[in-house]
């Protein structure tokens, strides 16, 4: 391809195509069609094979749901474990509170730290710094990459401590945990987390200095909100346009629609259209609840909400990493170990809902179980499928605005625009309709 080739020529038609979108978890491709200097089509296609989780969950025991749904995504297993456990607890009419709830928040902080560190440094920063990958980047930014790996490792260690291992933890149960590790093991994390907190401050400063492609959009942001804390594993669903509902009302307000240009089913808010979940949504809706260190740093660097440029999500992810380190330190600092590893459950027939903030945004679950606790129905809405429509709209607008860029540059920036969402395609596909076009 001729790198100086410009798309913007009178009456010119062209196609931008990336067949294998790299540095996202899963397999996807993007497709933008330009006719007479106008973007006529923008598709983010997913060709990840379907795995049918909602189907084979039927007929399984309720207590298997956290282990099974974890396997939807190796990068955010806790999101699936927590949402499914919460849904089962909801069906049985119990709430997990006190020290058990704090430990759940702690393991979730671990997932946010490792997932954000992975995405910010290893998958997204190379775009801003002009490298093909973190491996290429390491040659010039050796110290940064070393620090990134350490930070990610500390997130993983937190997951290993509470969960037994970092990929598909074995210790998350409906009602709590199987086992509570001894106090010393928690206390041993404190110094590492203090180091991680300092590293996260540097991460924020580094990313805040990047050059951000120019794009600002009026999104409707949707996130969980909790009156007492920066919501992670519990809250009501709120939006920047005034939505404020219980998680069990989700289906009354959100639906999947068939969109002609992409032939795909995408989540939209009924009567309102595309919306956006994830770090920017949480940040813009719940900024007040961040610890003073995050707020100060945001102010100092000029990143106070609302942040509407999707490329700036990399800074917000870094700020959330700092939050997660602070929060983990707070929990360990006030550590109270629960008397029993989990609350007692009385199995009964019913329907339950769960919704928690995966690193990429809300992960919503609904299950119906029978009187023996056997799952009869399951529905899971992961974050990426909710953002898919917004991702395509970003793409459309971005390309339209930058038609004068060299084709190769523009193609890369389109990839980068999708990587703003840290799209976790493995998660999205068991729900999205696939349009498979093999060449």
């Amino acid at each position, binding site marked *: 391809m001729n790198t100086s080739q410009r798309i913007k020529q009178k009456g010119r038609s062209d196609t931008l195509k990336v067949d294998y979108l790299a540095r996202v978890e899963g397999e996807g491709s993007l497709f933008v069609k330009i006719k007479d200097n106008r973007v006529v089509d923008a598709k983010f296609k997913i060709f990840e094979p379907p795995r049918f989780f909602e189907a084979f969950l039927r007929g399984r*025991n309720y207590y298997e749901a956290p282990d099974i749904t974890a396997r939807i*995504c190796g990068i955010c297993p806790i999101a699936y474990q927590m949402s499914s456990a919460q849904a089962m607890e909801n069906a049985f009419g119990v709430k997990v509170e006190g020290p058990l709830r704090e430990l759940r928040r702690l393991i979730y902080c671990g997932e946010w730290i490792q997932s954000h560190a992975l995405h910010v440094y290893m998958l997204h920063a190379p775009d801003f710094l002009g490298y*093909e990958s973190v491996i290429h980047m390491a040659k010039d930014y050796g110290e940064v990459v070393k620090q990134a790996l350490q930070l990610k490792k500390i997130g993983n260690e937190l997951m290993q401590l509470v969960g037994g291992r970092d990929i598909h933890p074995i210790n998350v149960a409906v009602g709590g945990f199987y086992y509570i590790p001894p106090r010393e093991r928690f206390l041993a994390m404190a110094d590492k987390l203090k180091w991680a907190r300092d590293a996260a401050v540097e991460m924020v400063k580094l990313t805040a200095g990047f050059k951000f492609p120019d794009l600002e959009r009026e999104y409707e942001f949707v996130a969980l909100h909790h009156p007492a804390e920066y919501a992670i594993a519990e809250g009501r669903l709120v939006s920047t346009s005034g939505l404020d509902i219980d998680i069990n009302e989700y289906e009354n307000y959100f639906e999947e629609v068939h969109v002609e240009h992409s032939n795909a089913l995408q989540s939209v808010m009924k009567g309102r259209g595309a919306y956006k979940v994830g770090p920017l949504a949480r940040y813009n809706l719940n900024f007040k609840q961040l610890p003073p260190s995050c707020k100060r740093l945001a102010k100092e660097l000029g990143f106070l909400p609302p942040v509407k440029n999707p490329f700036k999500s990399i800074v917000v992810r870094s700020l959330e990493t700092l939050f997660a380190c602070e929060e983990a330190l707070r929990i360990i600092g006030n550590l109270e170990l629960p008397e029993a590893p989990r609350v007692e459950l009385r199995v009964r027939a019913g329907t339950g809902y769960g919704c928690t903030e995966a690193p990429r945004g809300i992960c919503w679950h609904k299950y119906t179980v029978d009187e023996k606790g056997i799952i009869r129905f399951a529905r899971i809405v992961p974050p990426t499928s909710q953002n898919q429509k917004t991702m395509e709209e970003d793409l459309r607008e971005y390309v339209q605005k930058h038609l004068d860029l060299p084709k190769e540059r523009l193609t890369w920036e389109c990839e980068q625009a999708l990587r703003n969402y840290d799209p976790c395609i493995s998660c999205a596909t068991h729900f999205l309709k696939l349009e498979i076009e093999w060449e």
Partner: protein
Amino acid sequence: MKQTKKPRIAVWKFASCDGCQLSLLDCEDELLDIVGAVEIAYFPEASRAFGKGPYDISLVEGSITTPHDAERIHQVRRLSKVLITIGACATAGGIQALRNFAEVEKYIPMVYASPQYIETLKKSTPINEHVFVDFELRGCPINKYQLLEVFNAYLNGRKPNVPPHSVCLECKLNGNACVMVAHGTPCLGPVTQAGCGALCPAYNRGCYGCFGPKETPNPTAMGEWLSQMGMSEEDIVRSFRTFNAYAEAFRRESETLEYR
């Protein structure tokens, strides 16, 4: 592999959750050394640079579930001197192989509103049903230290040291109290291959078999044992049908119980 040039590595994904390839990025302390010793020529999850084959070692994650993937795996084999499968999806078909015990036609409308667009095979199958595999590394997910061992072994032309014995032996080596004996908690440890370090028993729960069957297991005796502990036949079938449901030994036992 004796050569002056750095060995070229590729990482491939089929139907999976990405957890096993993430294990490679999870080698935080070793990653920079690995990158120094080999050339990561193809690893789409981590790099937008796509280096052309052939490759000295291919790591393959995921199972075969679509007609296209059934062809793609042959290309991967042709491009690879050594092909190593990583994880339960690639070695046994993974959790998505639960469809193999049902009718996938019935599954599709449970998940997708426009079933006409779904292209999928009736079964989810392991890589070795399609091409020759040089080495299979078990686990859902794999253990990253075992991955490093396999890597090292192939780079140095020796056999990987990955023991085929049971999780029980790891329990004994760690001095774990046996959850079956101590609390009457059902545990698949006796029939499950080691590799995780007997993680679940150390966290006070029974092994659920995520590393798949050990060498020459006795799942029938295991099933009887579970039944004596008061587990229903349906639950015993379910416990053999998780992440390694389609692995020969587990599959046979669950089918025998089901059709009895």
